[in-house]
């Protein structure tokens, strides 16, 4: 049975037994190069679920809202299960309200990999043993793994998830194709001045559409600090200082929550490398608090607990 079929079967069981009210998964997008989040509510609709290399969204972003109307099942890749762990630990959702359908895939397509294709002519995108097959009117072309997959997938070890109710896919530990923190290492070679100049350039592009925040499961606040319009904390202008303040504050707020799912960067219409910030922060969190977001249910949430011996350095 394919992973997709297996997923559909499990979803049907969950829905017909009444264990959950809705299964959040992926459905066909408006074009074969895209999939789209769907909310499956009946066993019949479960046949709309798909699982293929285009299934990129981090669906855990919907959980805090979705659990309000009853128990939910959600399709989550290994990096995204970590978001659920943090959401549970930070009391945004109850563990018993969420059935975690953990799916270990070979990897998710990065959009740039399709640059050479006529996207109107792409009929299907599927996994092959050695990469991703793109089906067009000319037949299949296989893009090799290191070109096809998103960076986060290339460094994924498919480690056992801290929580999972249903597991689909190949969970055998695998050797990562890339070092997860390679780009942070590159970045660390810059001087403090160069770093500042680098981010100043990046943030100058930001149009404050907040797609990064909205796509992020860690950004669950009912009212974000930039949105307060009674007492204004952060200006809504897109000047260098304001953008800097927005991003730095958001990064502080996602410390210990950012699992490196990469959705902020993918959602950003201006091509700002937001994951780099997240990864740098997660290294800092590891160094200072000895924990990695979402890796265990036992570690205290970085933001949710205070100890008198908490380190208090001022990172660059």
């Amino acid at each position, binding site marked *: 049975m394919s992973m997709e079929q297996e997923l559909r079967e499990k979803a049907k069981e969950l829905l017909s037994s009444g264990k959950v009210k809705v299964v959040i998964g992926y459905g066909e997008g408006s074009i074969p190069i895209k999939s789209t989040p769907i909310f499956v509510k009946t066993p019949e609709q479960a046949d709309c679920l798909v699982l293929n290399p285009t299934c990129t969204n981090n669906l855990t972003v919907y959980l805090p809202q979705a659990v309000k109307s009853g128990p939910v099942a959600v399709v989550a890749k290994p990096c995204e299960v970590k978001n659920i762990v943090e959401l549970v630990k930070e009391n945004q959702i109850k563990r018993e309200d969420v059935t975690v359908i953990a799916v270990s895939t070979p990897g998710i397509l990065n959009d740039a990999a399709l640059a050479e294709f006529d996207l109107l002519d792409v009929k299907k995108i599927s996994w092959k043993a050695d990469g991703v097959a793109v089906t067009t009117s000319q037949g299949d072309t296989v893009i090799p793994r290191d070109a096809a997959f998103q960076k986060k997938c290339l460094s994924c070890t498919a480690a056992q998830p801290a929580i999972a109710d249903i597991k689909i896919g190949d969970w055998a530990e695998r050797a990562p194709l890339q070092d997860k923190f390679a780009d942070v290492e590159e970045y660390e070679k810059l001087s403090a001045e160069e770093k500042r100049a680098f981010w100043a350039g990046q943030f100058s592009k930001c149009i404050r559409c907040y797609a990064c925040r909205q796509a992020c499961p860690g950004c669950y606040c009912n009212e974000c600090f930039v949105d307060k*319009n009674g*007492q204004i904390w952060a200006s809504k202008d897109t000047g260098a200082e304001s953008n800097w303040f927005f991003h730095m504050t958001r990064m502080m707020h996602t410390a210990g929550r950012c699992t490196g799912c990469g959705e902020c960067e993918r959602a950003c219409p201006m091509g700002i490398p937001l994951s780099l910030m997240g990864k740098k922060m997660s290294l800092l969190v590891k160094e200072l608090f000895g924990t990695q977001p979402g890796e265990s249910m036992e570690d205290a949430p970085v933001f949710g607990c205070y100890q008198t011996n908490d380190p208090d350095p001022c990172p660059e």
Partner: protein
Amino acid sequence: MSNNPYVPQLAVIEKITEETWDTKTFRAVFVDEEFRNNFTYKPGQFQEVSVFGTGEATFCLTSTATRPGYIEFSVKRFGCVTKALHGLSEGATVGVRAPLGNCFPYESFKGKDLWFIGGGIGMAPLRSLLNFCLDNRDDYGTVNIIYGARSAGDLCFKSEFDEWKNSPNTNLYLTIDREEEGWTENVGFVPSYLMDLKPNPEGAIAITCGPPIMIKFVLKNLNELGFTDEQIYTTLEMRMKCGIGKCGRCNIGQYYVCTDGPVFSNAQLKGLPLEY
């Protein structure tokens, strides 16, 4: 002079009246003499008032152009700008962009009996039309004012009640939600007081403004009394910024409350999507 429509005129606060514990009426005079002398407006129009350093907020012009030389606006304390306004003293400078929006079709009200039905701060837009009509007393039939608030202390414009009462052919009906010591007028909600007073819809116009829940029942009761939707007018409140149909936030369907409103007849309202 500026042709940038977002730059306000400077005006000096000449007088501040404390209406209630959370509402003050400000009288302001434009600094620029030429602008002041040429400035005119119609009942129902509104303005954007700036407190520099805090921002701009929307208030109706509660004064009337028949009493020229100044403008007035009544402000209920809510958030930043309204709080900042409440903190001002006489002599302070504010910015004003006015007049904005449409107005009551007062020409078509001529010869009719008028029923003003206001609740709380909702009396502010009605006051402009009311004083306009009183200043052109002969143009209109009877003028009737039903004005209610939570308590006696919540009624605005108390200093004008005598003037209103004593105008020819003018009736002032006051009501508060609950009994209070020393209160001799009606007790009860505005919509039910309206039913007690039973205005005759023939040749009459009703103009209402107040909290949404009050408006809802006043409209229903007016219909019940026989007022047609064309005989009923109200002013709408939406979140506003530009006030000139550009910033896109005050639309109800294809209409912009800041330019196609804020005054609507009930007949017009019924043609709009329910998104206000």
